[in-house]
């Protein structure tokens, strides 16, 4: 039986992890490779690296990091952040990334999704969507959720599926950082209306939130950052509790 996936997300800047990471037992908590190794051994099903660098050398720095992760880690990982062309994707996949995620660049140039899926296959193209509710309607936002667009979340999600996305990483800006649970209503609607996997993101605060997003939100995977980085939730405890709730997980 296909299991539900637990995905820690690491924010990367200039090849280093950012946002506090509270791993006292790590020699270098800023080293994404070491952190990735810890998470893979702890039972993470997949990893996401989100690059937020804005330097000239970012492409090469990120490619080097991807290569070092691939060398060390034996679970799949996705790389996102600033990807806007076939060349960007090619260099990341060549260096060992399993999937890439595109966000703002896909909104600005939707044909990019078709091009990437055609060239590399849908299975390695994740489209990340940031959205928040404005006057009762879920609107897609850009630039890490700062810039609103006129796009409706569900319409955009259907379009990216048609254009060849292999899965969707949906972050609710209304829930992100609140530690109050995932946007399960919107997630369930996405899952019902689409036929590709949906990753829930934004709002994880405790173990029950994960149970809820798989049961009520019908999510295929759940992504979180700080609850894992600050050891508020141990992946082994989380998976055991999911199992106790009859949610299929890899233990």
């Amino acid at each position, binding site marked *: *039986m*296909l*299991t*539900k*996936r637990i995905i820690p997300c690491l924010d990367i800047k200039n090849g280093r992890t950012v946002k506090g990471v509270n791993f006292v037992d790590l020699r270098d908590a800023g080293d994404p490779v070491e952190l990735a190794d810890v998470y*893979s051994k702890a039972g993470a*099903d*997949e990893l996401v690296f989100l690059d937020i660098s804005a330097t000239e050398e970012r492409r090469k720095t990120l490619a080097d990091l991807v*290569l070092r992760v*691939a*060398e*060390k880690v*034996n*679970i*799949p990982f996705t790389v996102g952040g600033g990807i806007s062309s076939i060349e960007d994707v090619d260099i990341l*996949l*060549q*260096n*060992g*990334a*399993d*999937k890439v995620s595109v966000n703002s660049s896909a909104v600005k140039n939707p044909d990019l999704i078709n091009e990437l899926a*055609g*060239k*590399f*296959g*849908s*299975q*390695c193209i994740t489209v990340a969507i940031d959205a928040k509710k404005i006057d009762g309607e879920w609107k897609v936002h850009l630039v890490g959720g700062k810039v609103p667009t006129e796009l409706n979340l569900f319409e955009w999600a259907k379009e990216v599926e048609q254009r060849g996305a*292999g*899965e969707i990483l949906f972050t609710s800006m209304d829930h992100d950082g609140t530690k109050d649970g995932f946007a399960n209503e919107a997630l369930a609607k996405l899952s019902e209306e689409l*036929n*590709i*996997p949906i990753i829930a993101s934004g709002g994880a605060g405790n173990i029950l939130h994960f149970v809820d997003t798989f049961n009520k939100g019908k999510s*295929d*995977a759940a992504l979180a950052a700080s609850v894992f980085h600050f050891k508020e939730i141990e992946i082994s405890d989380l998976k055991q509790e999911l199992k106790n709730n009859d949610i299929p997980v*890899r233990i």
Partner: protein
Amino acid sequence: MKIVIINYGAGNIQSIKFAIQRLGYEAVLSNDPEEIQQADKVIFPGVGEASSAMQKLKESGLDTLVPKLKQPVLGICLGMQLMCNYTEEGDTRGLAIFDTNVLRFNHGVKVPQIGWNQIEELKSPLFKDVTEKEYIYLVHSYYAPITEETVAQSTYGIAYSTALQKNNFYGTQFHPEKSSDVGEQILKNFLEL
């Protein structure tokens, strides 16, 4: 031991190379027919779309070489699918090593299947020291049905082949290089055949 990963421009071969390194072996990437023929073990990877991968294989003349190889050959993911007779993806004729067609998932499940599923009914030296129902990582939209050549199966809407074997030819739908310690054991078993 000489291990060659066939490099025909399709897929994430770096990860396979690294996984082999972690097991203490070295692999070379090559599309040179002579080098491939002389290898002790050949890995035939593949990620992406079937018809364009098959096209690349033909351009390098490897479509006629691979079926004639005598040493153990391991096809991974799309590599395994291309070793079958035919795949619905891109209406593509394969290498006809495994006697089956590859079909698109169409059983009320999300496509692609992405994530960890269990393998069972294990029947190959590939699975030495691997227990039934271990978890392996998969990402695919097409599948090989269960046949006499099936040596591992999983269920996603229906039961299907997650590994095939015929003589010296092995194929896994899952990615051993991405399937944690279980995957590395399977890769090790192949290298030590």
